[in-house]
């Protein structure tokens, strides 16, 4: 009885695997009623880009990582490279993450927390467990509002290029970083993001980063978002600023008692 059960599981596993290996990268992707790829679901990155978007050795509390930057080099202007190195040295206190602020884009995409995508014909909305961030991407053909506007998560306008969802993002602050290693940008940041389903549970993410105040040329990052498949998975809360306050209040209470 027990052996039969195991055999059935193995058989089922083979059946499930076979079509995938045969179909390779053309595995069917979910689609919306209008035929567009269906990007909806709860996604999370696995690459340790949150710590450092470039190749890096492990440090205490930091997993080793292969970078997500194309060619691994970030084309900083000379002054900016110096600033990046200072940021790295002072990262424990200088990183805006240490204040619990919204982490900016693209950083919020690869924080080690899940986010959820919703899609209608006129909007793609992204909600983030980290810091209760929200990105509303308008797909109704409207242009960016006239600036200057300094938003923590920018202003996003999207369109479809075949099966790839392309998002143009502008109107940033200069207060956010790109990772915990001090990589940074200015308020002149301009992003072009490309989201392409690579199968039902994998979403390829590529972002072109342009900032003439900080870099000598545009450069690219790419990574994969993985679908959270747990049947009970829900987007929860991780609000760092409020957790910091709560922790501080708990300490004060302890001292007071």
């Amino acid at each position: 009885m027990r052996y039969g059960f195991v055999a059935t599981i193995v058989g089922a596993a083979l059946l499930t695997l076979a079509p995938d290996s045969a179909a390779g990268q053309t595995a069917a992707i979910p689609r919306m009623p209008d035929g567009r790829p269906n990007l909806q679901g709860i996604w999370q990155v696995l690459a340790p880009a949150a710590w450092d978007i470039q190749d890096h050795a492990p440090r205490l509390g930091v997993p080793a990582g292969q970078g997500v930057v194309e060619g691994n080099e970030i084309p900083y202007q000379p002054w900016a490279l110096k600033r990046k190195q200072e940021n790295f040295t002072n990262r424990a206190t200088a990183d805006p993450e240490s204040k619990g602020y919204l982490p900016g884009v693209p950083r919020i995409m690869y924080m080690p927390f899940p986010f959820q995508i919703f899609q209608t014909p006129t909007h793609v909305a992204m909600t983030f467990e980290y810091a209760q961030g929200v990105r509303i991407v308008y797909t109704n053909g409207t242009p960016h509002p006239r600036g200057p506007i300094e938003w923590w998560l920018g202003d996003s306008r999207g369109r479809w290029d075949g099966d790839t969802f392309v998002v143009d993002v502008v109107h940033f602050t200069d207060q956010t970083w790109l990772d915990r290693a001090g990589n940074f940008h200015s308020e002149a940041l301009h992003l072009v993001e490309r989201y392409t389903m690579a199968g039902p549970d994998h979403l390829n993410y590529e972002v072109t980063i342009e900032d003439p105040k900080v870099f000598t040329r545009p450069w690219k990052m790419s990574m994969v978002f993985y679908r959270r498949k747990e049947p009970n998975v829900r987007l929860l809360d991780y609000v760092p600023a409020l957790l910091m306050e709560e922790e501080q209040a708990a300490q004060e209470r302890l001292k007071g008692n």
Partner: protein
Amino acid sequence: MHTRLVCRILALGLAAAPSMAGAQTPERPPIIAGCPTENLAWHTCALRRARSFTPPRTASGRPDFQGYWRSRLTQSFSVEGVADNHPFVKDPNERWDVGAPEIIEPADRKIPYQPWATRIGREGVNFHQYVDPRATCSTGGVPRLALQDPSQILQPPTDDHVLWLHEDHHQFRVIAMGQRPPVGQEVTTWNGVSRGRWDGTTLVIETANFNGYVWIDDSGNFYTNAARVTERLTMVDADTIHYQATIEDPTVYTRPWTVAWALIRDATPGGYELFEEACREGDRDLPLIREQGFKLYYGIPWRFR
């Protein structure tokens, strides 16, 4: 004692922030969707009218709630209303604003507090000792979010979720439609974990897993992490939603109770979009409020439990 004055000015500052998006402090019109706007009269009339209204449908055939919405009826200082002879109305430093009750049930339009909880919520213990949690850049919570700044409802055509976005401190509520595995009670969140279903043309949202760190209104009325909130959204006409929320919390109340108000479609010419209302990123108020001696609120104090 100008402490509260400082606090209230700051709170007003926060409330005024979205005015750059074109929002104005709403004033109560006498009639909305053909119904008087006193909350109980509104509730009765609007639900009656809704019965003869056929709501617009999404492509998938669901009632279509999509668009931009804001509350117009209310913003009372207390959901119980504040009578003009209320002692706090006369306090020059800690003045509560006179207002009509938002509670439509029970009939006395008071929160059915258990005796121990009355003085904490209704009689000002919370209000006098703690910072309104909303002023700390957290969230209005449920149902207070639905009373505040503009919001947007999105309904993906896959019918598996409804997303309710609030401009207020970029809060959002993910409403998973249909049966979902329950979430363990230790998993607490600011706005709760919501499941939705359709009851005819009414969107029913059931929410639990609250952290109990929010207030229900400006005056400090409260629930705990044991609360469950059931909201019902029904279209009365193409531009009006009847909103009601029933709050249960057996640790605080003797019975469930219900608030109701209207949500009105924003018809700003040329369209409307939610703006990013980053709050804690620029918050310099909280340290000032705390210097005045107000404590941060993390649920009703342990000594009252």
